[in-house]
């Protein structure tokens, strides 16, 4: 196609009426070429019907038991709707996001955005992210002891245990004392976390744990 062809087509538009007449094989002024083509195409169907296949010939000989249940539904049109493809993906993504937001499992900013958006377009209220107060002057993780002084004394016969820092709650100091209330009574409340032994190590860890506390207390005392 050239621009010249396009110009010619614009100058000679084909109306629906003329198109219909040409397709029915009627002569239309100025469209002799098309009329000739239609006539030639129609002539291809002037021949006799082709010989039927064996199965069809058998039907012509014996007839057919009419099946009123057979619906003459048209075969499915060979049309593909590509624009439908992203829809399931979008539904899954939105569903997953809503589910996570409902469980308050999204990161804080995302949770807030999703919660606000959902609240603005629907009556559903999703949980908002928990607001954690900014930590104030944290106490020093190391106990206030003299430099060079080791607050944990490990019994020489014991294997060194892994220790994890754990804050000591002064209200529940008895819980950590394992009934040895007298050993801690002299220390008073401590704000700084003190290392605590991992009581999962070795057999008889309960006794060694108690021994550790006792040793520490006695050492500090």
């Amino acid at each position, binding site marked *: 196609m050239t621009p010249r062809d396009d110009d010619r087509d614009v100058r000679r538009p084909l109306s629906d009426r003329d*198109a219909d007449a040409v397709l029915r094989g009627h002569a239309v002024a100025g*469209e002799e070429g*098309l009329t000739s083509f239609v006539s030639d195409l129609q002539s291809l*169907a002037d021949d006799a019907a*082709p010989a039927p296949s064996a*199965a069809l010939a058998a039907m*012509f000989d014996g007839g057919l*038991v009419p*099946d009123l249940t057979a619906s003459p539904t*048209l075969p499915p049109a060979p049309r593909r709707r590509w624009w439908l493809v992203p829809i399931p993906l979008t539904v899954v993504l939105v569903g997953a996001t809503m589910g996570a937001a409902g469980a308050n499992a999204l990161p804080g900013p995302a949770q807030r955005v999703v919660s606000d958006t959902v609240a603005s377009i629907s009556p559903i209220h999703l949980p908002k992210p928990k607001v954690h107060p900014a930590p104030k002057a944290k106490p020093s993780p190391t106990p206030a002891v003299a430099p060079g002084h080791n607050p944990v004394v490990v019994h020489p016969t014991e294997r060194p245990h892994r220790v994890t820092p754990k804050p000591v709650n002064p209200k529940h100091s008895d819980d950590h004392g394992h009934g040895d209330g007298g050993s801690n009574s002299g220390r008073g409340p401590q704000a700084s976390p003190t290392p605590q032994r991992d009581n999962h190590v070795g057999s008889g860890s309960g006794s060694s744990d108690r021994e550790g506390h006792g040793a520490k207390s006695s050492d500090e005392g």
Partner: protein
Amino acid sequence: MSDALLEDLLPPAQAGEAWALRAVYEQLAPKVLAYLRARGASEPEDLTSEVFLAVFPKLAALSGGAAGLRTFTFSVAHARLVDDMRKRGRREPPVAYVAAEDPRQSPSTEDVAVEALQSERVRALLETLLPDQRDVLVLRILGDLTVDQVAEALGKTAGAVKQLQRRGLITLRRSVENHPDGVTL
């Protein structure tokens, strides 16, 4: 194709009368065969039989008279053609015309030559169209279907069919005017 004749044949054909089925076949099969040939089916005669083997068992429940029968028959033909092309793994297979292999030979050599020339010219002109445009024009001309019936057969809207029809005819007009003696592939 006479719709009046088809209207008369339809009730006995729907009752499964063998003679009526044969008469319906003789009325419609040449058009279906020409459609399948024009669209490049690999085995148009076999495919024509397959189309009617699919149509006849459903005749009893068919409505719409002769027009409904033609629409349904060509929609089945189109679906079989699409299947045939998919099986061969190509959408638009070029089929070279060989006059000696054409079963529609007449006793006259001159007639064969003229027919072959016409057929070749028609096929070459159709090849200048897009597949959808070709479907619409061939169904309208050979199937004698209206715009709405073509839309139903192809699973398109009437507006889309009109557009395809208009553009196809404009392309054909240009091809005919540029090559008055016929288009060669």
